[in-house]
């Protein structure tokens, strides 16, 4: 078992010394920003030339829905949100610390990315995980 939480997804990076962040990459030919790592650009077709970038923790709410029915064991309701990050990159995740009511969740709301335990979920080896969430700023 790892002595520290593992990242819930590959594009969440946990540096040895420093704060966790979301990792993306940027095409050096056309400037398209992608979540995570990749070799080639699916916007312009450029081969190689992807530069690793640290994505911003600031963004705005692009779209969302309020999930009332999910799989057994998953707490509902919760807000599934699409967030555009400042400087590029779009990420999906849970929007927390808001009332799950449509009139309480304005489009374009400024949000920040926060990092916390992955809702207590552990893998079969008992490892804990670190995940990311959005909350209003």
């Amino acid at each position, binding site marked *: 078992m790892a002595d520290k939480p*593992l990242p*819930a*997804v590959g594009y969440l990076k946990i540096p040895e010394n420093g704060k966790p962040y979301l990792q993306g990459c940027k095409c050096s030919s056309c400037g*398209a920003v*992608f*979540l995570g790592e990749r070799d080639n650009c*699916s*916007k312009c077709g450029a081969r190689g030339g992807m530069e690793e970038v640290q994505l911003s923790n600031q963004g705005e709410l*692009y*779209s*969302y*829905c*309020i*999930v*009332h*029915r*999910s*799989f057994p064991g*998953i*707490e*509902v309701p*919760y807000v*599934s*949100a*699409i967030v*555009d990050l400042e400087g590029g990159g*779009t*990420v*999906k*995740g*849970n929007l927390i610390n808001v009332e799950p009511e*449509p009139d309480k969740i304005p*489009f*374009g709301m400024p949000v920040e990315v926060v990092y916390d335990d*992955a*809702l207590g*979920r*552990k*893998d079969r080896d008992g490892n804990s*995980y670190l*995940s*990311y969430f959005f909350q209003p700023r």
Partner: protein
Amino acid sequence: MTDAYVIGVDMIKFGRFPEKTVPQIGSEAALLALDDCGLKIQDMQALYCGNLGQASGMVGQRILQEIGQTGVPVINVSNACATGATAFREAWASVKAGLYDVVLAVGVEQMGKGLLGGGGGATGIPKEGLLGSGTMPAVFAEAGMEHSRKHGTTFEQFAKVSVKNHHHATMNPKAMYQIETPLETVMNAEMISYPNTKLMCSVNVDGSAAAVIASESKARELGLMNRAIKVRASVLTSDPWQERDLVMPDVNTCTRLAAKQAYEMAGVGPEDVDLIELHDCFATAEILHYENLGLCPDGEAGRMIDDGEVELGGKIPVNVSGGLLSKGHPLGATGIANIYEVSTHLRGEAGERQVEGARIGLTHVIGLGSACGIHILEKAS
């Protein structure tokens, strides 16, 4: 190149048939379509079979093992919810190319109940409910909310789609459900993913549909032109790169691209189309496609549903079959079932729900991931 015609087409009544196998369900529609044009399986030069749930299970061959092992080529197709339309299109392309004179396309699916999508990876921890939701109702709710953001579309307007399509289905004996669902019933149904309630989600059903496609000379030789349906356009697109597409599936851009190509290929515009069967996998999705298919300018889809323009008897009836919301959505069969519906109207055989004087119709499906299939059909002259 020859023109290609649908000479036989049919579907089974959608329902739940756990006691049957997928090939058995597919065989039923295949035989119905053959009967529709009076041909036999021995007349078919190839079989294009669409199925998703058993994509590696040689469903097409197993259909022939049910109804006639003639040794013809079988092409099994899987393309998400565009599976049936893709099988149909491959069949059409083979006739257009002159490879065959008459071929069979079958779409079939046997579905479980419950939420689709949201499956996690094999390693680590489950992501559903941790990184938002990947269930289909949530994904299409988010797509609908994007429309709300841009155009102020309301929960009530989305709900009206479901009222309309359920009403249409009361006139379709092959639909899964024939029940009226008034607006209050739709809006007060169990909320699945706001703004989609349970009655705004397509029905998971088992079903099959099939079409016999022939070249013009073959259709004439068989004396079948009087009920034949000309395929004026067949288009398939995938998702072009869009800023958010890899995180938030974009059903709009691939539909707009397909619609543009289809109208060009057919030499018609949206104003020439008399009825449309489009991919209302969720009520939110239908609203988006009024604009994507050019039925109205951007931002007017909400007004279209409010004004009743998309009802039977309206300016451009949409999903008079009851749509995926009430007819049901057996994934691999849906694309061909749409072609059956439009063909039935063009033949003037749709009974109570007949779109009067229908001359040109359009079918549309979206497979998330993504694939968009559009066909424009016309009664042969």
